[in-house]
């Protein structure tokens, strides 16, 4: 996509991109290349003894069942977070879109979680579900449901999924609402005249027309589930029980920060970067030929 008429100037565009280039070169490319370099080395925590080991770290990584497992967990987790988050917020948006009165009040309440820091969201949820003082776990127990995310993997996964979805629901909701409101009203009316009821209209008209929004949110949510949920996992399950909630970013952090295995951690970073760059490229491909209406 390009503009019909472009400005011509030898130096101005360079001047304009200079600040951004400076920032990303210094704080992105340089550190990223360091990370790549580090992923090819074995070193002690303090960096006082460094040896080049080639792809050794990667070999260890992919040979490590824990890492492969972490991939699996991350995949399940991301699918759940993106899927449930998108579905729930879409549902809320659909109903909010129907409302003419009270919509603002609903909207305002629904978007507040967006303002909560993930680190604090984790605190809130652990506070609610803590086996000793959590209100929710107390009531669950009372209902005869023995909540124990410390030992039950499903509970643990549920907990981080719920917390992560909760944190992201507002963001999705806002986008869906806007997307729904930008669908021309006449289309809905045409469908109504064609005999489609609300449900049918949703599935055959609104949802397909939301697909650019949905796709955009899908990418955003996957990236969110990959990275921004770290603080939630850190605060709630710490990857347990076992390694059943140790998602990739938690593992990077754990191996690098807690365990001080810098080479291994750097190798994991490199893998993550590759995944995200791939996602970025896909996103661009799609955006460039997005559906127009």
């Amino acid at each position, binding site marked *: 996509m390009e503009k019909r008429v472009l400005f011509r100037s030898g130096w101005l565009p360079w001047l304009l991109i200079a600040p951004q280039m400076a920032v990303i070169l210094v704080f992105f490319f340089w550190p990223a290349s360091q990370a790549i370099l580090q992923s090819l080395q074995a070193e002690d925590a303090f960096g006082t003894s460094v040896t080049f080991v080639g792809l050794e770290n990667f070999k260890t990584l992919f040979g490590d069942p824990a890492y492969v497992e972490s991939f699996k967990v991350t995949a399940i987790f991301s699918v759940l977070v993106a899927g449930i988050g998108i579905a729930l917020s879409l549902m809320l948006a659909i109903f909010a879109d129907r409302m003419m009165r009270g919509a603002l009040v609903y909207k305002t309440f629904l978007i507040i979680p967006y303002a909560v820091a993930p680190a604090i969201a984790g605190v809130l949820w652990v506070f609610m579900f803590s086996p000793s003082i959590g209100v929710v776990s107390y009531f669950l127990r009372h209902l005869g449901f023995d909540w124990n995310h410390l030992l039950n993997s499903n509970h643990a996964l549920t907990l981080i999924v719920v917390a992560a979805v909760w944190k992201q629901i507002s963001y999705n909701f806002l986008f869906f609402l806007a997307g729904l409101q930008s669908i021309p009203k006449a289309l809905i009316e045409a469908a109504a*005249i064609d005999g489609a009821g609300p449900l049918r209209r949703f599935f055959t008209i609104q949802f397909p027309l939301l697909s650019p929004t949905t796709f955009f949110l899908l990418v955003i949510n996957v990236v969110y589930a990959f990275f921004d949920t770290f603080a939630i996992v850190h605060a709630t399950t710490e990857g347990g029980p076992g390694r059943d909630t140790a998602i990739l970013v938690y593992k990077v952090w754990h191996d690098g920060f807690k365990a001080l295995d810098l080479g291994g951690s750097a190798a994991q970073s490199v893998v993550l970067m590759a995944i995200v760059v791939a996602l970025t490229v896909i996103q661009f491909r799609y955006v460039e030929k997005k559906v127009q209406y």
Partner: protein
Amino acid sequence: MSAISFRNVIKRYGKGAKTNQVIHGVSAEIEAGEFVVIVGPSGCGKSTLLRMVAGLEEISAGEIAIGNRVVNNIEPAQRDIAMVFQNYALYPHMSVFQNMAYGLKIAKVPVDEIKARVDKAARILELGHLLERKPRELSGGQRQRVAMGRAIVRQPLVFLFDEPLSNLDAKLRAQTRLEIQKLHRELGITSLFVTHDQVEAMTLAQRIIVMNAGVMDQFGTPEEVYARPATTFVAGFIGSPPMNLLKHAPGVRPGTILGIRPEHLMLDTDGWTVQVEYVELLGAERLIYGRVGDEQLVVRADESQPAPVAGDTVKIGARQDKLHWFDAGSGKRAA
């Protein structure tokens, strides 16, 4: 039996103090198979009237019947109507075929029949080669035809059109007008067509409803509306250039308004003294814009008449059998 009956229909928007009445008791009977055009300036309530027929707006008071069924409380889908929207409202993610088939699919029409009906409509509208395209791959005129096709395949009791031509350019508009006429001749389905363009109204309608600020000023054939406008509003709205309406010209009694169409005025040796302001050439004829006293006047003259130029003073005579008289107070036709 009428195909559509309006019985003292009233429409109010808003509630309580914010109520805004936009339709003030419209009554009309539209015969089966008739092509009726609702015309009027922007905001006069044309779309509102149409949308009440479609069931997209509630009816505040009065009744609307389609066939012999009062539809006030019937859902749009059950009214047996089809509608063509101003922006066509094609489903952007569906192919032309799917767009046309959508209503039938919902109505659970068998696949074979859907195909047959869509193919037939596509043939009529010359859309056959476009069936697999998406709306965005079509030109404006083609989209228009698809919108019409979507209405046709439904074989409804009534067609509703809300300014379906206003997004087309002049040439395409004229052409599509002809197509709609042809279609109506072929299918014979009762049609209600909204437009604010009087040329469109005149060329398309069997009967015209002229709306003026929520009130139906006249309901008649194009000839009637053109030849015997019921109010000064109708007189001024229909015809291009519109009828000259004069209050102070020599020979007009106070309290009355004289209407005379441009084509019924001519350069003469006697008559009103007119200051020519400019002259417009329209292919085969010319329009002479001038002033009689403080009032504007337009004369339509053909090639055979002499051509004055801006600045000339000429004498203009009127055909005495073509004068219209209105009451200045009510605006109603006096004679």
